[in-house]
């Protein structure tokens, strides 16, 4: 017994000495990830001083697949299926800007009905992604209903996309020149019905999740990213719009038929995690009425894709095109040397750009706020790594 007391005293002494030794020893280093800090393999190292985070270093790359290098070995059409792998839940949008860029390079005109169906698929897919993101946010905050509901309602849009494209998640639907196939019979009515039901659900989401005092406590006033900082860090998508910058590529630089669609850019001024989780909800509401407009204004018949040569190619040149994806602006920079294979493809993805805000927001905040800040950044690790 005496021995044990002695050891105990020694341990206390050692502990005190360690704390006294240097200021650095007060800090504890924690490694968050790489095994799914929430979703997707991503690691960041943080140092905490008591409750507060004083250092953060993101370490991505656990799901790096070399998409950009792979593109150089395949022709423009073969690239589509592997390019949607970085973000399978938003696969229509990640191939959208690729198709736009290839169309510019090879000078391909997309038929009007093709443009509408493409935009429709893109809106439906954005809903799928945002609902999945919202579900994961629920896991992060320990709110299991918030996981079950959005992931369940996501099936509404997955079913629609399955009817439209033939695949549940990875569609390979957008191709240079338009879309792969026309809408099936009765799709319009089914789509309108499901969207009307979903709008009712969104109102319930607001009540049960966003007006939940616990959810508000954990997100309001947490992780403030001011407008100036958001611009300086070059963040995009809902993170940017939550900081009071009404920027949306669909409005700023309308592609395809978006200049004929009447919609408002949703943004908030409060700059906190709550705003960053609220803006995607507002986007989903706005998206519902965009879907209705697209279905109404769509030409009743016509071609949905342009006839292409077997191996489309254009003259040597380059193109930079962007669209608004679930995570913000998604740009493709493609350099062509005149052959059917691209010479260089660069993806500028929202997740990679938003990652810069992570250390910026985490340093100085409490460790307990880490989950609500991290996932509010709309960060998809697989997309950031490419």
């Amino acid at each position: 017994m005496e021995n044990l007391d002695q050891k105990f005293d020694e341990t206390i002494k050692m502990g005190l000495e360690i704390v006294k030794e240097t200021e650095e020893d007060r800090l504890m280093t924690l490694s968050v990830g790489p095994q799914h800090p929430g979703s997707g393999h991503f690691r960041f190292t943080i140092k905490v001083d008591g409750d507060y985070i004083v250092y953060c270093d993101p370490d991505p790359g656990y799901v790096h697949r070399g998409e950009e290098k792979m593109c150089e070995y395949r022709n423009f059409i073969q690239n589509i299926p592997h390019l949607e792998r970085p973000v399978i839940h938003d696969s229509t949008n990640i191939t959208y800007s690729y198709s736009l860029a290839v169309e510019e390079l090879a000078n391909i005109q997309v038929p009007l009905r093709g443009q509408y169906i493409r935009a429709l698929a893109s809106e439906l897919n954005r809903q799928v992604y945002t609902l999945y993101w919202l579900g994961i946010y629920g896991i992060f905050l320990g709110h299991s209903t918030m996981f079950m509901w959005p992931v369940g309602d996501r099936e509404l849009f997955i079913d629609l996309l399955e009817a439209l494209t033939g695949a549940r998640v990875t569609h390979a639907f957008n191709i240079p020149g338009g879309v792969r196939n026309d809408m099936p019979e009765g799709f319009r009515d089914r789509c309108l019905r499901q969207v009307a039901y979903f709008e009712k659900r969104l109102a319930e989401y607001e009540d049960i999740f966003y007006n939940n005092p616990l959810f508000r406590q954990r997100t309001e006033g947490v992780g403030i990213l001011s407008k100036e900082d958001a611009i300086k860090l070059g963040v995009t998508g809902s993170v940017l719009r939550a900081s009071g910058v009404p920027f949306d590529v669909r409005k700023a630089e309308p592609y395809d038929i978006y200049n004929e669609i009447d919609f408002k850019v949703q943004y908030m001024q409060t700059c906190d995690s709550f705003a960053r989780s609220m803006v995607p909800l507002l986007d989903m509401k706005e998206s519902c009425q965009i879907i209705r407009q697209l279905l109404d204004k769509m030409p009743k018949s016509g071609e949905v894709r342009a006839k292409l040569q077997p191996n489309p190619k254009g003259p040597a040149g380059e193109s930079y095109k962007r669209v608004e994806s679930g995570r913000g602006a998604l740009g493709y920079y493609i350099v062509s040397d005149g052959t059917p294979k691209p010479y260089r493809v660069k993806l500028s993805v929202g997740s990679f750009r938003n990652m810069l805000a992570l250390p910026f927001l985490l340093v100085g905040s409490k460790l307990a706020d880490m989950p609500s800040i991290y996932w509010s950044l709309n960060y998809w690790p697989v997309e950031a790594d490419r």
Partner: protein
Amino acid sequence: MIYARPGRTKILVPSNEIVEVASFIRDTLGFDHAESVSGTDYPKDNQIEVIYHLSSYSDDKLSSQVMALSTRVNRDDARLPTLINIFKSAEYHERETFEMLGVYFDGHPRNERFLLPEDWADIPPLRKEFRIKGR
């Protein structure tokens, strides 16, 4: 000036002038952030082209514009001054360009591994002489 199309402008500047040109683009023209930084390898010219795609959030008139600021460096001694003091948003993009193409950014705090595995011991993978196995 390489081209000026609707919404897209590309300029090519010598590498020793890029910092001044970038300051001019930010302060006078109003482009406030970098959307992407990419490098393209041209072994035939023995050069690497580094290109910054710049855009603007604060000026509504510029929001549809993307300015491509590019420069070329020698492949054997690829060094460029960093632009992160002008465009903070380029920080991770430049770091990625360093590891993927081996362009060293003078003044960048971290020219080190980012996406590649920790034990990566090959040449930068986006250089053209790096071949995917079996292809």
